[in-house]
């Protein structure tokens, strides 16, 4: 099966009219399996929810999977939003900026790059493409010092750019976008537009992009999640708590709770974590039909 077929089918699948073939024999055993795995996935998150209703000492003295008291929930909420002059809100905004910029930027870069790889035949195309993909294998722990030095040299340490710029590189996004262009934008269409005298940039922006919107959403969404949960990069390039994203901020609170022990706020941190994953859940739920198609077409070629 080629990527082209895969993608066309991906489009079919997102159409609401698709009729599923009737299937029988959805057995009790299958349902039990689903339920079992559901419990496995959700049980730890259930702990998160019950823990929000406890103060720190109850964390060590009450049953882990049941609630304690609504007033502790209110206290935790207040602490979360007022501690260190309400810096949690700042972290939330920072995360939105970092993840948002990474999502939009890497989506655009990947769309343009993927377009070039898909629609043009140039010298060294395939080896360049493979080389870019292979870099996924370099562990990011090793890049910490070089990236720090680089940012230092161009004077970007402790700026928003230090986190945003490296987040623009998304080799897997490039790969996905190439597949989308392969499948979603027929070369004949391009040639016809050229004959009509359309400029290259018009062909790309106005004709092409709308046809690969599923891919754009997919790449943007995965870049967003990647940047949202990124910990290592901000840890290295940002030394100011007003520039921390949520992950780094919560982890600093966590470490301070561990190392000073005077005023541990684990239950507040857990509440903060839950708030920090809410945007991701909402994004995935609301954009589900786009990215599923996107993932599938990525998977088709393998």
């Amino acid at each position, binding site marked *: *099966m080629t990527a082209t077929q895969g993608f066309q089918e*991906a489009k*079919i*699948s997102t159409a609401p009219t698709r*009729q*599923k*073939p009737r*299937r029988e024999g959805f057995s009790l055993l*299958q349902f039990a*399996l*689903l339920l079992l*795995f*559901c419990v496995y*996935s959700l049980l*730890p998150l259930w*702990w*998160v929810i019950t823990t929000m209703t406890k103060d720190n000492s109850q964390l060590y003295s009450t*049953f*882990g*999977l049941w609630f304690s008291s609504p007033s502790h929930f209110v206290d935790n909420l207040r602490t979360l939003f007022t501690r260190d002059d309400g810096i949690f809100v700042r972290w939330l905004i920072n995360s939105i900026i970092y993840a948002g910029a990474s999502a939009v930027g890497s989506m655009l*870069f*990947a769309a*343009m*790059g993927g377009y*070039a*790889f898909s629609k043009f035949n*140039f010298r060294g195309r395939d080896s360049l493409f493979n080389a870019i993909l*292979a870099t*996924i*294998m370099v*562990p990011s722990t*090793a*890049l910490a010092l*070089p990236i720090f*030095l*680089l940012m230092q040299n161009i004077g970007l340490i402790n700026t928003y750019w230090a986190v945003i710029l490296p987040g*623009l*590189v998304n*080799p897997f996004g*490039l790969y996905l976008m190439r597949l989308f262009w392969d499948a979603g934008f027929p070369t004949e269409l391009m040639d016809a537009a*050229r004959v009509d005298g359309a400029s*290259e940039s018009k062909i*790309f922006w106005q004709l092409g992009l709308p046809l690969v919107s599923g891919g754009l959403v997919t790449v943007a969404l995965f870049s967003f*999640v990647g940047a949202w*949960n990124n*910990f290592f990069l901000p840890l290295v390039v940002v030394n100011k708590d007003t520039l921390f994203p949520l*992950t780094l901020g919560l982890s600093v609170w966590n470490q301070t709770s*561990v190392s000073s022990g005077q005023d541990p706020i684990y239950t507040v941190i857990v509440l903060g*974590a839950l708030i920090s994953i809410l945007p991701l*859940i909402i994004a*995935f739920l609301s954009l*589900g039909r786009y990215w599923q*198609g996107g*993932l*599938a077409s*990525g*998977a*088709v*070629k*393998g």
Partner: protein
Amino acid sequence: MRNRATPWFFLTPFLLAFTAFFITPVGYALYLSLFIKKRSGFGPAKNVFGGLTNYVRAFQDSDFLHSLLNILLFLVIQVPLMLLVATTLALILDSVKNGFAQRFFRTAFYLPYTVPGVIAGLLWGYLYSKNLSPLNQITGLKTDFLSSGILLFSIGNIVTWTWTGYNMITLYAALQNVPPDIYEAARIDGASNWNVTRYVKLPLLRPALTLTGIFSVIGTMQIFSEPFVLRPLGYVPDNITPNTYLYLAVARDGNFGYGAALAIVMALFTFILSGFFLRNVRGEA
């Protein structure tokens, strides 16, 4: 204006960012890996050119090699298990007709992936407590999840918890792309459910499985935060995974040269493993 420059025009933004934030750091890491620390008496160590010394050391470093063995164990046990579960769930979910139930399960399975590493650590650290763990309290056991015999499996469990749903979604999405008429054809031919699964769906899943497999290999090689967040709670060996070992060489020991060499070796190892994996998958076809 269609000329040879056009593709490069479109490639420029990506390539610029890629060169600046990937190629340059990797190049610098390569350069760093050629330097070793030298001292005489007291005072700070000097970095002197050591050629391939760091690489020779890496291949003779039994602690590092042992961490690679742990990874192989993961690849033999955890990855197949995770993909098996993900495939099974995707196949079941594909036959769920109720739209709400389907969305519910999909979301439930997917949720763990959104939990940041720090929190996953707090969370599992609590669930792994010997006395306080609800798991032990409910089952009445006294499992010490962090004892050295079980530790690797406990880490495997966190990885499985985080990633199974993610992989399941990928596989499920691939199943959604199977044109309905294939099923119809099979059914007209009188194929049973099992036969449809075995001879129609599974082969169609192969590319998606290959992709998730490759990502699992790469991800496994870079396991870091799961063992790291468990360190304060018990004895977690420095070399439980290559990435923790590398991190400690850099962050704890300040040996940037050796850390860089380890990273290069790890990347090569990943490359070989992925290649091996691809070959086997393709070979079966």
